């Protein structure tokens, strides 16, 4: 399968801090990649580089074979992105916001209307359609963020902690949506909630301190526990990402 999203040896530092230290990964159409790591491991920075918001110090980002920094506008056409915390324009209504996002992506007329309605339906936003975003609950805000990310049916979908802070019902809605979107898209989902990984992700990449420390299916990774321990994703995660073992696992 051809990869729709490809990161090659991406590096990014902030002053003396190496946030992303040579991360490579690729995601094909129909695939959901779980991007895991402890807080501060470089997940969000990697995603910001992947969507072209941050310029990497080195390495390459390709969206549908288009180099992000050589042809950014073209690459971003194929991209849907939910930033961490789902930042939104609070003074707009849900309808006004989705209309803006669609128009800014070049949609108009009946095509724009259809995309807005479809996105609202899939993210279950119709009940708050005319409401100001600033007045919405956390769950609804997250769904508005998701709606703008999927409304143009992007080939590549990058979701930074889409279920963080949601209640179990809301989490389920988001997981279902991701599974549904995965039929036509390549998706990266970052999370530190391990329980949802087997339910949502086909493949997992675990990073720690800016480096990939493990990659494979959730089952493969769950088996990478210290000798004698029961296979479990949580145990493997802790084993792979703690300071003592991170260097060894990477090597």
């Amino acid at each position, binding site marked *: 399968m051809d990869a729709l999203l490809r990161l090659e040896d991406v590096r990014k530092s902030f002053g003396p801090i190496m946030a992303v230290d040579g991360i490579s990964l690729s995601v094909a159409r129909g695939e959901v990649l779980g991007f895991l790591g402890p807080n501060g491991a470089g997940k969000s920075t990697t995603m910001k580089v992947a969507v072209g918001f*941050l310029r990497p110090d080195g390495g390459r980002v390709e969206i549908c074979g288009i180099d992000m920094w050589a042809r950014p506008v073209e690459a971003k056409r194929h991209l849907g*992105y939910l930033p961490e*915390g789902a930042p939104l*324009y609070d003074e707009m209504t849900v309808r006004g916001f989705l209309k*803006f996002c669609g*128009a*800014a992506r*070049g949609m108009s007329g009946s095509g724009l209307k259809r995309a807005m309605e479809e996105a609202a339906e899939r993210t279950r936003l119709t009940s708050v359609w005319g409401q100001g975003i600033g007045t919405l609950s956390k769950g609804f805000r997250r769904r508005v963020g998701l709606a703008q990310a999927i409304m143009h049916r992007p080939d590549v979908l990058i979701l930074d902690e889409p279920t963080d802070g949601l209640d179990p019902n809301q989490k389920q809605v988001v997981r279902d949506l991701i599974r549904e979107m995965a039929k036509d898209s390549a998706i990266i989902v970052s999370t530190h909630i391990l329980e949802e990984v087997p339910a949502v992700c086909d493949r997992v990449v675990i990073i720690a301190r800016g480096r990939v420390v493990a990659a494979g299916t959730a089952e493969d990774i769950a088996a990478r526990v210290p000798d004698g321990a029961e296979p479990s994703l949580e145990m493997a995660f802790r084993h792979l990402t703690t300071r003592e073992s991170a260097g060894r696992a990477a090597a």
Partner: protein
Amino acid sequence: MRAFMAIVRRELSAYFATPIAYVFIVIFVALAGVFTFQVGNFFARGVADLAPFFLYLPWLLLVLAPAVAMRLWAEERNSGTIELLLTLPLTTTTAVVAKWLAGWLFLGVGLMATFGLWITVNWLGSPDNGVIALGYLAGWATGGVLLAAGAAMSAITRNQVIAYVLAAAVCFILMSMGTPLVQEVLGGALPAPVAEALLAISVPSHYAAVAQGVVTLADVVYWLSMTAFWLFINVLVVEWKKAA
């Protein structure tokens, strides 16, 4: 073009979504009245024109333009929405120019709110309305330059107060370089060509004559190139922040 207009519309409506915009316009109009009638000795002059208003207008814009500019980028960076904006399929230049245009249109609304003064002088006498119209255009063009400089400063920080202070400082420099007092000091301290160059790029040197009814091609070129220069700086700052 569709993306450009979408941003202009969004930005413009964002100004009016909060009461702050109305507060700015009210303060601006009130100050315009004070400077025209009180400080400018409107009644003592006994002439029905807007010369006192246009004399002080650039200094009023020095207060208003940074206020309009400060939120343009700092607010987006602070709320995180800048991640949405800069991952849309559009160039940084499109976003920069669209944001500036929205602010400039808002400045235009602020200027229009002072039309009461124009009506007043027409009611009191028969002023040269061509000169007044040109004065307004010169003020709007000057506001465009100051706004572009302010927007570039807004892109530096996520704090709107800091953005305002930086914008006001840069606008003050652009303004004061053209005043006789500063020119005198600069003339003594700098070689003549440098002092002359600073005068040429200062805002008042291209505003004063136009506000009195004389517009030259050089003034128009100045406004266009100066605005373009600051918008370019704005693009550079946004791009630099991506790499920082």
